[in-house]
């Protein structure tokens, strides 16, 4: 029944070319070589020639290796028995358990009709003030953590995952170091969360093409669970590796590169994945938290840059702290208005003053005399960094807001903060203000 071909005309990178007819675009094939069996996907049809991308790489493939077309596109099983399991980027078990075949679903499906989405409205509490107060995580949001290699982004990801109130965690690892994979698995297991987690792991040692499949597989499974009224949190680490895999394939296919070698459709490719984050109007939701490492700490690098345009706000992880200057999306501002009336004011005022502190630091470094105002800013900046920015701080939002008022009151007079008089009257810690004035 299945059509089998034995003559491979061209092998370049991970792409092989055969002469074949009746092949559908994006169809899967099985390539059997001396090294074993691998899946491959059709990525171009042209005048009778079929280009296939071999998942396990082309190494060891002979010109007479067998190519068998399967007549369907990439699929992943979907059932409750996925829970607690670990798979490879190709969907094979990685944990030694039995393979799962039931109920296959297609991956990379169509996008959600915007008319069926609803405005995200639920804040996801994390207990980290730099997130809860200054860059609130919202259910159904897509949010990257911009980081530099060497920062503790994976522990942060794990911590948010464990503290966030969700029904299901799906972890997609791309180009992950093997010990990082073990870290995630062990952490989830230790905290008793493994039974509500599914892991799709591509490690740095695995074939590069499998890396490309990880986000699609994760999100296809997440979508099915979300349709069954589950609130799903998808963790993707690291999306820069995914983009690099795209680049590698694009160059092999002799596509014209647009920016630093990345293909021109990088934005669309990333967006197609991130846009799967959704709050269905009558079902569950998908929240995506992804790590994007910035090569050379350069936010204008094409991967973080495109990611920034797609996502709704970002966390910047630098020197072990989340920076307060991450961009804010309208989304958060709307959610913030529903927490406590002073939330937005505290957020903006504290950041404006912190920006002033940074300027003063520069002035100080150049040896200028510090004015009264500068000294106030310096005091404020240090308090802010110690009490708020430290990642070990773990307090609920309301306490964090009160803490913000206390820090402000310790450093400034009310008028210096330009906070609306109405809020000053209500929230400014009176006794401290009086003490400072005296």
């Amino acid at each position, binding site marked *: 029944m299945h059509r089998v071909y034995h003559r491979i005309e061209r092998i370049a990178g991970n792409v092989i070319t055969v002469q074949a007819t009746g*092949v559908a675009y994006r169809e899967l094939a099985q390539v059997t070589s001396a090294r074993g069996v691998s899946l491959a996907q059709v990525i171009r049809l042209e005048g009778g020639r079929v280009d296939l991308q071999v998942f396990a790489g082309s190494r060891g493939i002979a010109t007479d290796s067998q190519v068998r077309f399967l007549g369907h596109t990439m699929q992943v099983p979907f059932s409750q028995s996925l829970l607690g399991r670990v798979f490879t980027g190709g969907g094979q078990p990685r944990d030694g358990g039995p393979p799962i075949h039931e109920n296959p679903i297609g991956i990379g499906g*169509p996008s959600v009709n915007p008319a069926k989405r609803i405005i995200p409205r639920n804040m996801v509490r994390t207990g980290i003030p730099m997130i809860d107060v200054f860059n609130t995580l919202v259910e159904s949001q897509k949010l990257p953590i911009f980081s530099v290699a060497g920062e503790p982004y994976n522990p942060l990801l794990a911590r948010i995952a464990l503290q966030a109130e969700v029904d299901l965690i799906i972890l997609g690892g791309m180009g992950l170091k093997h010990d990082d994979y073990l870290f995630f698995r062990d952490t989830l297991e230790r905290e008793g969360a493994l039974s509500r987690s599914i892991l799709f792991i591509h490690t740095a040692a695995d074939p590069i093409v499998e890396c490309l499949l990880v986000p699609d597989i994760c999100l296809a499974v997440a979508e099915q669970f979300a349709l069954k009224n589950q609130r799903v949190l998808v963790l993707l680490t690291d999306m820069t590796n995914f983009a690099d895999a795209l680049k590698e394939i694009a160059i092999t296919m002799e596509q014209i590169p647009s920016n630093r070698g990345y293909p021109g*459709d990088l934005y669309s490719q990333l967006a197609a994945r991130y846009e799967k984050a959704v709050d269905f109007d009558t079902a569950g939701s998908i929240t995506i938290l992804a790590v994007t490492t910035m090569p050379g700490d350069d936010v204008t690098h094409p991967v973080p840059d495109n990611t920034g345009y*797609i996502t709704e706000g970002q966390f910047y992880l630098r020197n072990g702290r989340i920076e307060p200057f991450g961009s804010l999306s309208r989304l958060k501002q709307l959610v913030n208005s529903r927490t406590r009336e002073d939330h937005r004011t505290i957020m903006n005022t504290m950041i404006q003053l912190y920006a002033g502190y940074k300027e003063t630091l520069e*002035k100080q470094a*150049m040896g200028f005399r510090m004015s009264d105002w500068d000294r106030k800013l310096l005091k404020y900046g240090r308090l802010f960094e110690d009490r708020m920015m430290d990642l070990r701080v773990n307090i609920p939002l309301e306490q964090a807001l009160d803490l913000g008022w206390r820090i402000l009151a310790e450093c400034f007079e009310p008028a210096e903060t330009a906070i609306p008089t109405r809020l000053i009257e209500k929230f400014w810690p009176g006794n401290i203000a009086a003490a400072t004035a005296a």
Partner: protein
Amino acid sequence: MSDNIGKIVGVNGNLLTVEFEKPVVQNEVAYARLGDLRLKSEVIRVRGHYAEMQVFEDTTGLKEGDRVEFTGELLSAELGPGLLAQVFDGLQNPLPKLAEECGFFLKRGHYLDALPRDRRWAFTPTVETGASVTAGDALGWVPEGIFRHRIFAPFSIPRGERWTVEEIAPAGEYAVEHVVARLRDPRGGRHEARLFQRWPVKIPIRAFAERLRPTEPLTTKIRIIDTLFPVARGGTYCIPGPFGAGKTVLQQLTSRYADVDIVIVAACGERAGEVVETLREFPELVDPRTGRSLMERTLIICNTSSMPVAAREASVYTAVTIAEYYRQMGLNVLLLADSTSRWAQALREMSGRLEEIPGEEAFPAYLESVIAAFYERAGVVRLNDGSTGSVTIGGTVSPAGGNFEEPVTQSTLKVVGAFHGLSRERSDQRRYPAIHPLESWSKYEGVVLVDQVAAARDVLFRGNDVNQMMKVVGEEGTSIDDFVVYLKAEFLDAVYLQQDAYHPVDAATSPERQRYVFERLVRILKTPMRFESKDAARRFFQRLTQTVKDWNRVEMGGAEFAEIERRVEAMVAEVAEYA
């Protein structure tokens, strides 16, 4: 259905190579057959017997040898009553209706009529049998929301030619497909006019008497725009900015408060979440101009980033065509395109698949002319009946790395009349809207007096100079006079240029209020002031800033407004130095 059939010989992403035999038309629409599905596509290049076509859908599953049906028609939009308050995708499929039929996901190959066929409209004819009409003349009208929606003679009547009305329907209720008039051209050809017509989206509608120069300001109620960098009705402007600098918030505010009749939002290659907000909130907001729901004057064309790329390109053209159509009724239309960079990237993706020789950053060489042609579709026009209508285009640009030196920003700047450059520095400091007051510009006239603007800008520039200088010589090396200039610039920035988009009063400042407040602020800026020390000066301006900010938050005309104004004046009088 045309009987011109082709055969697929190649598939590369959303690009098909199709072998054909009968003649094909450049940019004609064709359908690729995938089982029962028909995937819409457009011819974009012809070489020998091969047509290259971009498909507006996912191409997964297409095979070599599959059939392609050519239609002989260019990609067109349906223009008629029932467009307002709708949400369309880039190919003008109504999304809510699609959701009813297909559920959560966008099914490919599923196309619906843009205009509801069953709805009936109360038609009133305005011409009589025997009248002669030309393109852009009305045959009658139907009420659509608060507007008189004119029903036009076909826009395809050649320029300078007049057709005779042979038959016109009497007043009555008709569905859009009903033939309301029969026309005869000078060569004797017969034509029908319905309540709607189709028009190819990539060709501008030119059925008007003449184009005028845009002079009248379009107020957005955003102070920094209306006062410093105004936009004119019929003009063009662009908002480039790095991600997270607030482009979308700015567009949202503009769509809410802009003083125009109709707002068309083209969400092109951006997040779905933002469209959803407009979609869910606008129906509940009241348009202060009309007292009706804001949605009644709004139309959304939405091709979000995860929807197929080729339709992204179509979406901006669909949007501008609909804008031109409403302009023909003597209305002022504002088209907000968010973001034109995504559209340019769609061009780049197709250009790459066509293996064209790339220009700068792999954008095609024709990028500039395509962008220029798009913005040129804006304008104020005098219509055949003497009334005027306008299309204003505001496009956001998302430059890679926030660097304005890239091709899309540069091509756009060459053709627009105002530039609202957003700055990462200002948004990091939470100075919203983050439009850079020194780098932005506008060629249009605003709502306040020109010499007041000049005075304010002078203070801003000098304040910036002093600030730069202070970074080198420190505060101690700066004279107190210079320091006061710096504080005045910061003061103006804090109380006037910055605006709280989420405060019910501060979010929208009427032109009258802008004139009133700005005049007073400029007077404060011009007042010579004397302080004992720099710290005293700083403390004074901190107090003044807070008071004026409180002033911004109260309604104009009330007792509290006057009271705070008196307080501000008293504060200034205390430090004023009278020579």
